[in-house]
């Protein structure tokens, strides 16, 4: 009887330790919040975010899912895997995206229109556009509650020196450059996401990185 009781207690303790390890692993593996960089000389408070989108995030930035598509953000000169950005309330946020991934196409072509940015446009490789070809969309940067919809066209298949694994170097590798500015309002936490089914090999291309915070979805913390 005593031996049985000892066995049960040992099993319960072992299970508790394993659950504790799992929870602590999950709790310490949260996506960091990255503050936008203040920009001087703007009309009113302005900050900037520099992002890149990559077809495969690589083992360095995501050991568990090196093949997942992802956004990255530049912090202190280094590319960091995070999708949680902190920006000031009632300010302008200037975003630059270096887009290294290929075309996937939008499920809903309506989302190929630029909405909610200053001037209703995005700068695509230096040229202002109001919408893109929906079949050329690679990703989107959309904050539904702020009404910001920005489609990101892909790098053509025939492009030379395409980046396979992040981090990708904009000075040497094929990419598209998208710039836009949006205005923040009151304080709050607003989700953002990619609407392009770009997670190849998952359920309707919308699983894995599309359903996991820190890859193709995140938050804009307006403080």
């Amino acid at each position: 009887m005593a031996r049985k009781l000892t066995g049960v207690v040992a099993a319960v303790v072992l299970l508790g330790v394993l659950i504790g390890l799992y929870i602590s692993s999950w709790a310490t593996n949260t996506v960091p919040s990255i503050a936008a960089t203040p920009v001087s000389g703007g009309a009113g408070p302005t900050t900037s975010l520099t992002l890149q989108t990559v077809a495969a995030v690589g083992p360095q930035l995501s050991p568990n899912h090196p093949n997942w598509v992802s956004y990255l953000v530049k912090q202190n000169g280094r590319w960091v895997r995070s999708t949680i950005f902190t920006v000031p309330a009632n300010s302008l946020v200037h975003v630059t995206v270096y887009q290294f991934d290929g075309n996937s196409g939008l499920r809903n072509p309506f989302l190929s229109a630029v909405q909610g940015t200053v001037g209703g446009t995005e700068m695509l490789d230096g040229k202002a556009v109001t919408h893109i070809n929906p079949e050329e969309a690679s990703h989107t940067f959309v904050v539904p509650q702020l009404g910001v919809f920005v489609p990101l066209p892909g790098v053509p298949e025939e492009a030379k020196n395409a980046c396979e694994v992040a981090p990708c170097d904009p000075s040497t590798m094929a990419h598209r450059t998208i710039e836009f500015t949006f205005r923040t309002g009151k304080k709050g936490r607003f989700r953002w996401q990619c609407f392009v089914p770009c997670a190849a090999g998952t359920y309707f291309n919308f699983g894995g990185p599309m359903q996991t915070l820190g890859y193709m979805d995140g938050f804009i913390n307006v403080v």
Partner: protein
Amino acid sequence: MSSEAPAVGSPEPDHLRRFGTIWLIATLIALPLVIFVLGPELPPGNGSDAASGQVTDNTVLLAMATPVLLMVVIYLVYAIINFRQPKGGMLEGPAVRGHARIQTSWILITGALVLSLAVYGTVRLETGYGAGSGSGPKPLTVPSGKKLQVQVIAQQWAFTYRYPSYGGVETTHLELPVNEEVEFHVTSLDVIHSFWAYQLGVKADANPGVDNIAFVKPTKIQTFEVHCAELCGLWHGGMFDHGRVVSGADFETWIHEQQQTFAATTKVLPPYALTYAPEPTERGH
């Protein structure tokens, strides 16, 4: 051990009569309060014909449930007070030998209640053009007269709205004219969602490849909430927005603004259809 209850003190009162009297008085007090005071405040309010119908239905359900609920609760309290274990030792109660009249009455009354509710619900669905629910691609009953078609397109994780009678323009906002019959065509581009316009009393599943039709006539100028009511992935909880019911003139102004704003985008949209099958269409494509 004897099955007869020992004689204790004064003779037992007529519990059935006492309980019945208490229950009847409580029901006569509670029913008017439920129907006339609580009923008008029940969800989802009176923002449309469907919503008002649901308030009526909820009031009827509550009114029918009130006597039953009171019976259970009052009997519980009555039993706790009158049939509790007396101090001074364990006593076995009288043997329960059944009571055919009570059992028959219980079965007949509850059976009649449930069956009448089934009939009531069926009639209300039939006469209310689906009572705000999705009625599939071929609704059994269709309201007569002119109807504004609005297509609700769900995808992970947003709703967009298309107006086929205005050049097929698509928008991220839902606006409707007051006192006009609306015919929602609800569909999805990916997984199963559910379009729930709470204050309008409309709830219709959004299934890929299915045209789910729901009818509603907004009767009040107001802002209403739109939620997804089907667990659909990471941002299911964030899949909400607000719609507006406005005057007919304001609606015309707004829809023409949308047509101008999205003129270029409308050209790249697929022709208006009741369902869409965008790529990828297969799991693991």
